[in-house]
């Protein structure tokens, strides 16, 4: 209980402290990040750390707001998030806007930990909003400092969140009317009986709020401009960690609350995911620069996550969660590469690149590595997740899953084309005469991400076997009764 509370509040305190200081505060931020990493490791691996951790902040009619619960899924995602904080900060180390970026990342991290350990849906919702605000702050204050992109991000989340809130309140009230217990705890709300007609509308509202963060097609539009305008070091966190909140919310809150509706939504979700996967792939192919390219690649993968998730099938949902984690690492690698290139003064516009491998072979090698991971090469992180998601979804809706499988082909097209434009071919004469290859720190950072990628790809079972029951038993029984099978 105390540990988790510290985990959530420490980064916020640090962000407050940082914003009051004049100097950049790299060391402080990094120390906090490492403490957080340690805490999540303890929470993930310490014995007896799972289950409900305690209650607090009881408010009449709302339930215990500060009710914490540690599940295998939440603590694994928290660990991923904790790994990405120092990675993101390290990539931002020399940026002039380090302080605002670190502030945003730390606030987002605290909100994410809150999301992953919340048992009260209202608490989840509040953290979810804080996450969105911090995300918008990140887009506004780093990189291109693009106000329009930040506003777009806010608008999307705002509208989505409103719908989520309305749906949530309806479920809450219905539950109260049925049982007389007014409480926002998921354990209570999961038992609500809701008629099929209303359920589907409520579920749509929740999907609007949660899937916008993933981002699911057609709610994806903020992603490209958001990732594309924030500093790449910030996009590392935004695309790797922040997006997990939406998927986690779906798995942990929306689906258990409305299992029947989720089941009915499955075909729509699979089809949207399949369309989004290909859509992202095609837009990545047509991306105007490296940042947008990485953004669209991320969108494409997250739609595959959505596809597996909505399939509500054993393999698919395991694959989906695994891909969520793998995508975090790989996306961090991709945006890390972009970040390193920008620190060398390269804008990432295609016209200014070409033949770079000659000048920076180490960077080239790592770029290829993460590109390969991104295109789902077996043995690297994304593959088990992609393959399981597709194999599982194929059993529910073969044609849509087959369509998404074309993403395998599309992936190789856009990743290799980008790699060729950047690294191969004759040396672009607009490149600077001397270009520093990876420095020691960056090189180390890529090794950490690279080893993680390789480990996830070669031993996915280490994660898969611990995800245990992804959905609450209540909804799992219904879903298996619905014939989606093991």
């Amino acid at each position, binding site marked *: 209980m105390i540990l988790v509370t510290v985990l959530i509040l420490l980064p916020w305190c640090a962000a407050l402290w940082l914003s009051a200081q004049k100097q950049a505060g790299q060391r402080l931020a990094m120390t906090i990040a490492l403490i957080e990493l340690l805490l999540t490791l303890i929470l993930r691996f310490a014995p007896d750390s799972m289950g409900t951790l305690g209650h607090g902040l009881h408010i009449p*009619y709302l339930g215990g707001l500060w009710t914490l619960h540690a599940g295998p899924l939440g603590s694994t995602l928290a660990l991923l998030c904790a790994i990405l904080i120092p990675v993101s900060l390290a990539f931002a180390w020399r940026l002039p806007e380090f302080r605002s970026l670190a502030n945003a990342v730390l606030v987002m991290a605290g909100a994410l930990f809150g999301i992953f350990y919340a048992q009260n849906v209202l608490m989840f919702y509040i953290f979810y*909003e804080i996450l969105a*605000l911090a995300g*918008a702050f990140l887009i*506004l204050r780093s990189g291109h400092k693009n*106000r*329009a992109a*930040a*506003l*777009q991000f*806010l*608008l999307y989340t705002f509208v989505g*969140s*409103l719908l989520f*809130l309305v749906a949530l*309140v309806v479920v809450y*009230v219905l539950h109260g009317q049925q049982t007389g217990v*007014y409480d926002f705890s998921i354990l209570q709300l999961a038992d609500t009986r809701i008629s099929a007609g209303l359920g589907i509308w409520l579920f749509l509202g929740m999907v609007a709020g949660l899937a916008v963060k993933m981002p699911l097609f057609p709610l994806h*539009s903020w992603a*490209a401009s958001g990732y594309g305008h924030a500093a790449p070091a910030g996009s590392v966190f935004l695309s790797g960690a922040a997006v997990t909140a939406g998927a986690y919310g779906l798995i942990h809150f929306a689906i258990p609350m409305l299992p029947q509706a989720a089941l009915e939504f499955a075909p729509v979700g699979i089809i949207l995911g399949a369309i989004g996967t290909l*859509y992202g792939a*095609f*837009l990545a*192919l*047509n991306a105007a620069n490296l940042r947008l390219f990485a953004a669209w690649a991320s969108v494409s993968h997250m739609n595959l996550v959505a596809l597996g998730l909505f399939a509500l099938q*054993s*393999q698919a949902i*395991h694959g989906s969660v695994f891909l969520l984690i793998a995508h975090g690492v790989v996306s961090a690698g991709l945006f890390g590469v972009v970040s390193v290139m920008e620190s060398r003064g390269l804008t990432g516009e295609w016209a200014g690149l070409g033949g770079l491998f*000659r000048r920076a072979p180490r960077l080239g090698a790592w770029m290829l590595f993460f590109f390969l991971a991104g295109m789902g*090469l*077996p*043995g690297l992180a994304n593959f*088990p997740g992609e*393959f*399981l998601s*597709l*194999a*599982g979804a*194929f059993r529910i809706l*073969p044609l849509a*899953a*087959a369509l998404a*499988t*074309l993403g*395998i*082909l599309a992936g*190789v*097209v856009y990743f*290799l*084309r980008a790699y*060729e434009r950047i*690294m*191969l*071919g*004759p040396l672009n004469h607009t490149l600077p005469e001397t270009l520093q290859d990876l420095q020691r720190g960056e090189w180390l950072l890529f090794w950490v991400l690279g080893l993680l990628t390789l480990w996830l790809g*070669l*031993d996915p*079972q280490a994660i*898969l*076997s611990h995800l245990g029951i992804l959905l609450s038993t209540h909804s799992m029984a219904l879903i298996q009764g619905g014939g989606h099978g093991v």
Partner: protein
Amino acid sequence: MSEWLFLIPGLPLLGALLNAVFGEYFSPRKIGRMAATMPFLSTLVVFAVWMTHGRDPNLHDQVWTWMAVGHFQASVAFHVDQVTLVMISIAAFVGFLIHLFSQQYLSGDYGERRYYFYLNLFVGGMLILTMADNLLLLYLGWETVGLCSYALVAHWYRKQENAWAGRKAFVVTRIGDTALALAIFILFAEYHTLNYSPLFAAVAASPDHLALLIAGILILIAAVAKSAQFPLHIWLPDSMAGPSTVSALIHAATMVTAGVYLCIRLYPIFAAVPGMLWVIGLSGAFTALYAASCGIAQVDIKRVLAYSTISQLGYMFLGVGIGAPSLGLFHLLVHACFKALLFMGAGVVIIIYNENHDIRQMGGLKKQQPFLRWTFLAGIFALAAVPVISASFYSKDAIIATAFIVPGGKLLWVLALLGAVFTAIYAFRLYFLVFEGPEKPGESYQMGWGMKVPLGILAVASIGIGWLQFPPGWPGPKIWLPWLAPELGMPPAPTGNVNIFLQVAGSVATLIGIAIAYKAAQWEREGRGLSRIAFLFNAWFFDRIFLRIFPPVWYALARVLDRLLEQTGFQLLLLGGLKDGFGLGSKVLESGEDGLLSRYASGMILGLVVLLFVAWGYLL
């Protein structure tokens, strides 16, 4: 022995890993030595398997559980039976020979460590592909070799066209990979397993014809793409942009045979669908003829060999299709030896002629390079299937002869026999133009023992390895087919007069081809050769048509989606609508200072709280 199987792919992979981590601390020369040692050690382990379990191999090694969710169980587990033993012997030993050959061939070039990294990784991937005991691990090997093919074709990346050729190879083969993934999904959805033996048992127990038909077609597409069969062969001629050693290893001896291996391995699935095998046979026979016809008009030494590879792979598919997978595997073995030899020899020829690939500007090399000439000639003999004294005579001609006697095989036999004539033409045309005729001196080049030993070994194999299996009715050993029979069954064999007729027909086809080749070489020197037939020279214009249609459509689709849907639909209409709805026109954007965010944040929180309380109060 079982528990050591993991060493076979493990050692080359270890080499790749060491190279990646510590490579830059050592000289390229040392890294090359280390890289060559790894497949050599693998070969030793394979040799040990032969010695201990060669007669009837059936070994299994479970290393670790890769993925297990419900019925989706895939392990990193290796299985060795007869077919696998042949494949890993080729991959490890020929792989080692090519590593050895590369030491001198590539020394002093740029990117040597990178080259050895991918070469090691490739051998490891190929060994995993052939040793996998389930479809998912096979897929891992399948993709790994595809990656290495890409990286090695694009090895000399500083030229745009090399990078492009590598990408083309990867993209076209990935069409097949996608098909393979879909086939795996279907088989898993239908039979709930990924492991070969339970899968085959389930297929035999309850054949679902529709699912098996679709899966079979998809697997065939995968095999066709990987093995460069018509119409997905278009990547192979371009992949000659890579070093010749790469062509020898990947695009002749090993990776391109993965498609044939896949068909042999998944034979029960094809056999369960009526007519499927015949389609494979037709595809193979047609490709054999098609590619051979293109081969006779090529002037680039490596492109001749590339089309020849496509054509020879067609014969292997024909073997599988007519129900003689063991003969297909036999030809795979023979082809690995002589084609690796020819590619490496071509590499030396190219160095001698200073990176000039045009065979019309070569000639009379036999005086300057007697060793190269004799070894190359051995390879040419095997390629053209010269009767009795070449290995191909015992493998390829056996396939053609068997095609005649199986039901529905007459058409295949005609195509294949015609292909054999063309094969002899392009093989000897190449030889005559490069090694015979008036001497056109190139630079002097001294092959060291590291190059001569591999060429020598492969030349001996190209001549002699066919003697493992003499044709029916001949005295001499018949070892190959009986040894494979427990796993693949005995193929039908022609007897009596038909047998004699078929053997004579095969030999005559080769001899006619050689005679035409002699004239063709003469014509070519006089400037009026077969290369002037544009239809054949451009490979029936197929590649061009392909490139005109598919990539532009793909790119156009990407552009349309971006412009119409994303820019107009989502950004302009949807977002614009949202902004208007909230009264956030451009004025707010322009006037807003840094406080913009905090204003919206506070507004938002306030709004939410109010909404919550309103809802709360109202509903209660």
